[in-house]
C-alpha cells in the first residue's frame, strides 16, 4: 500500500487529504497485481450470546481480536465431575432428559448429569456425548450463584435444543446469529471459552 509523503517544515511527513492524487480506474484495479489475494481480511462475527473469558485483568490486556473479553469463574467438565453432590446446584443424579430436550439419543436421556459430565455418555455417538458433556458443565455454571458465566440456563438449553433437533452428532448445528452456522466443533470451541 503506497503512501506518498511530503516533508513539512518541522520534518513531519504527511499528505494533506485534499491533495491526494486521483487514482485512475485502471491503475487502481491493478494495484497489488492480479495475483493478489481477493479477500485480504475477514473479521468473523462473534456470537452475541455472551463473552469469552480470559485471566484477571485480561480485559485491560485484551488483544485487538478479543477486546472486552470477560473474566469468568466457570468450571470445566472435569471440575464438576470432581465435586461432591453437595457442591452441585442440582443433584448429580438428575437425569439428562430432565434438563435437556431432545434427549432421545441412545440412552443419553436416562443417564445422570454426573455420568454425562464425566464423559460417560451413552448416546451411541461419541460426538454427541462430547457436546452433551460440555453443555452439562455450561448448565451447571449457569445455575451456580456466585459464578457469572456468560451464558444463562436458557441459552445453554437453546444450544442443545437446536443441536439435538438438527440431528446432533456431526450433523447437528446451532445458529448463534442469523447466517452463522456452528457444527459440533465450533459449539465445543465456544463452550470451552466460557469456563
Amino acid at each position: 500500500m503506497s503512501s506518498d509523503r511530503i516533508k513539512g517544515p518541522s520534518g513531519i511527513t504527511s499528505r494533506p487529504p485534499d491533495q491526494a492524487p486521483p487514482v485512475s480506474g485502471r491503475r487502481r484495479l491493478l494495484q497489488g497485481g492480479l495475483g493478489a489475494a481477493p479477500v485480504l481480511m475477514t473479521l468473523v462475527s462473534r456470537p452475541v450470546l455472551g463473552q469469552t473469558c480470559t485471566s484477571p485483568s485480561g480485559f485491560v490486556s485484551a488483544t485487538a481480536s478479543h477486546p472486552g473479553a470477560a473474566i469468568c469463574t466457570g468450571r470445566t467438565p472435569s471440575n464438576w465431575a470432581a465435586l461432591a453432590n453437595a457442591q452441585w446446584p442440582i443433584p448429580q443424579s438428575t437425569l439428562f432428559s430432565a434438563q435437556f430436550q431432545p434427549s432421545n439419543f441412545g440412552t443419553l436421556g436416562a443417564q445422570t448429569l454426573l455420568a454425562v459430565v464425566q464423559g460417560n455418555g451413552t448416546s451411541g455417538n461419541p460426538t454427541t456425548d462430547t457436546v452433551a458433556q460440555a453443555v452439562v458443565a455450561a448448565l451447571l455454571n449457569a445455575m451456580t450463584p456466585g459464578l457469572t458465566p456468560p451464558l444463562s440456563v436458557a441459552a445453554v438449553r437453546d444450544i442443545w435444543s437446536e443441536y439435538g433437533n438438527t440431528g446432533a452428532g456431526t450433523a447437528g448445528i446451532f445458529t448463534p446469529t442469523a447466517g452463522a452456522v456452528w457444527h459440533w466443533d465450533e459449539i465445543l470451541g465456544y463452550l470451552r471459552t466460557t469456563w
Partner: protein
Amino acid sequence: MSSLSALRWRTTPIDAIAWREWDGEYVVRSERSGNTHLLGPLAGRVLQVLLDASSALNSDDIAAELSDELAATDAAERKAAIEAALSEFKRLGLAEPVQE
C-alpha cells in the same frame, strides 16, 4: 478450477450485502454470515459487477464488464484472477453459482 468458467454466478441476496469502497478497496458485510471482509480492488469490482447485474454472470461476462479497467493484462491471468475471487466468494457465502 476450469469448471468454474462454465458456471453462472450471482450474489447471495443483494439486500443481504452491505459494502463501501474507498480508494479502490472495499469493505463488505454479509448479513447472512455476519462476517465483514476487506476486499482488494479486483475482487471488489467483481462483487460490484455481480451486485449490479440483472442476471447471473459467468467469468467471461465479468471479464467483459471489466475489460476497460483490465485492458493491459493477459486474458488467461485475468480470467484466473476473476475465478479466484468467485471461488473465495463461494467459500465466504458472498456469491454462489446458479443451478441451471
